[in-house]
């Protein structure tokens, strides 16, 4: 069993959704994750708010951020517990962010630090 981090990017279009459309859309997120929960593959997820700050370099300069193109915008994350990348990718393919042309899911395995 391995852990994979799924990062949801893009899909900014939904910021213009009506409250009803937004609710319907978010229900699909909840359904997607509930299904993972039932299968015992869900290990956590949180949405992120749109704006943030970035601390950069040795001088620790703080700026508004993260200055990314719409499609790069990080909207949230999920951690799932599956055996391999293929399974993680299958999960990612059902992510509602992909309802948007510019939506993307970045899939990364969570590593172990061996020292």
């Amino acid at each position, binding site marked *: 069993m391995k852990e994979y981090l799924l990062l949801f990017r893009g899909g900014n279009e939904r910021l213009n959704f009506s409250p009803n459309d937004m609710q319907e859309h978010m229900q699909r997120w*909840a359904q997607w*994750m*509930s299904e993972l*929960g*039932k*299968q015992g593959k869900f290990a*956590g*997820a*949180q949405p992120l708010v749109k704006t943030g700050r970035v601390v950069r370099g040795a001088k620790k300069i703080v700026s508004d951020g993260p200055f990314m193109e719409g499609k790069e915008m990080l909207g949230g994350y*999920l951690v799932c517990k599956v055996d391999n990348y293929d399974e993680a990718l299958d999960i990612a393919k059902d992510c509602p962010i992909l309802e948007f042309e510019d939506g993307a899911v970045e899939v990364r395995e969570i590593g172990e630090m061996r020292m």
Partner: protein
Amino acid sequence: MPPHPYQVTKLTEHLFRTEAKKMIAVLTKIFGTENLQTAEDVVQDTLLSALDVWKLKGIPDNPSGWLFRVAKNKAIDIIRRNKHSLQYDFTDNEKILLTSEYTLTSAMDNFWQEKIINDDLLRMMFACCHPEISEENQITLILKTLCGFSTVEIARAFLTSEETVSKRLYRTKEFFRQHKIKLEFPAADDIKTRTDAVLNAVYLLFNEGYNSTNAEELIRKDVIEEAMILCKLLTENSHTQIPEVFALMALMCFHSSRNESRLTAEGEIILLPMQNRSKWNTALIEKGNAYMNKAAFGDVLSAYHLEAAIAFEHCSATNFEMTNWKIILQYYEWLMQIAPSPVTALNKVIVLMQVNGAQAALLELQEIKDLKKLGRYYLYYSLLGEIHLRLNNKEAAKENFDIAINLTQSQVEKKMLKNKIVELLN
């Protein structure tokens, strides 16, 4: 126009009984039995909110829906506030969804679906009746947590002190904290004994409603109704459909069919011989018969079967004189064999008095084992008074009626006993 505060209190009191137990069950499922206190606090808060808001804005169209929504929101608040606390274990597949903002609301909604709440309530009753919790502690917890009884009322029902009741509650919660008992239906080979414990609690609850220790009212219909609702849940669930469940349901139907005839308009007791039998609720008696038929499968003859049979004899007698006391006495003798108790022995003496007269009853009464347990039980002295009255020992009769008056907290009982004294002095 805002409703009269009293009205709100009356309605809320009813909802306390009917909805609070459901909320407790759902919240206990969410937070775990080890956090029963959290569930109780949320329910308490919810009911207080209801009182506050309804006083100002009136009672909402769907009060239960209102309560559930508020309880749900309070539960969500607690989860958000305790995100990183280890107090709540949300690691199971369903609960883990409560830890994510994406799924918190929808996962919470899932816990509150109407169709699963009744099952949760039954599971909660089974948790309260866990075999490693003593029977007394089980019943105390059900009465307090699920049925909203005060410790005073429970103490009266068990012929014990308030302090003992508080200790029992504490011990049971401590057991839950240590063992984190899951809310689930018992395994098939346990279901019989586990259901018996639940039935015992329902039975005591019914008795409390049927012959209330509450100072003002003798019959508390809301409590009777609660007992019948809980038992009905058991009759409807395939896990718990054993003969005893139907027998107890029959027993409660027969007894409560007489409610309207047991008190005068002024709330004074009308004794069985004087009751207007046309006021007996025939629909409930028929219901009782139907349950009795359902109880008659397998080879089980439980105390509930016998008590239901006794109640049926009373219900089917056209008048007091026509009562088949002999068969009732027979039922009591069987009852003493399978479930002997001082209170049953006492009731048997009452029947014996009808069949063999007061002198025989007096002898039998002195034979009761564990007479000490009845030492604070008013019915013992009230019966002793009655026996002496029939034997024309007026002084002894008055003496015992006086003790009974001091022992019962029910104003209605007091009044009835005082009337007897007045009569015997004339």
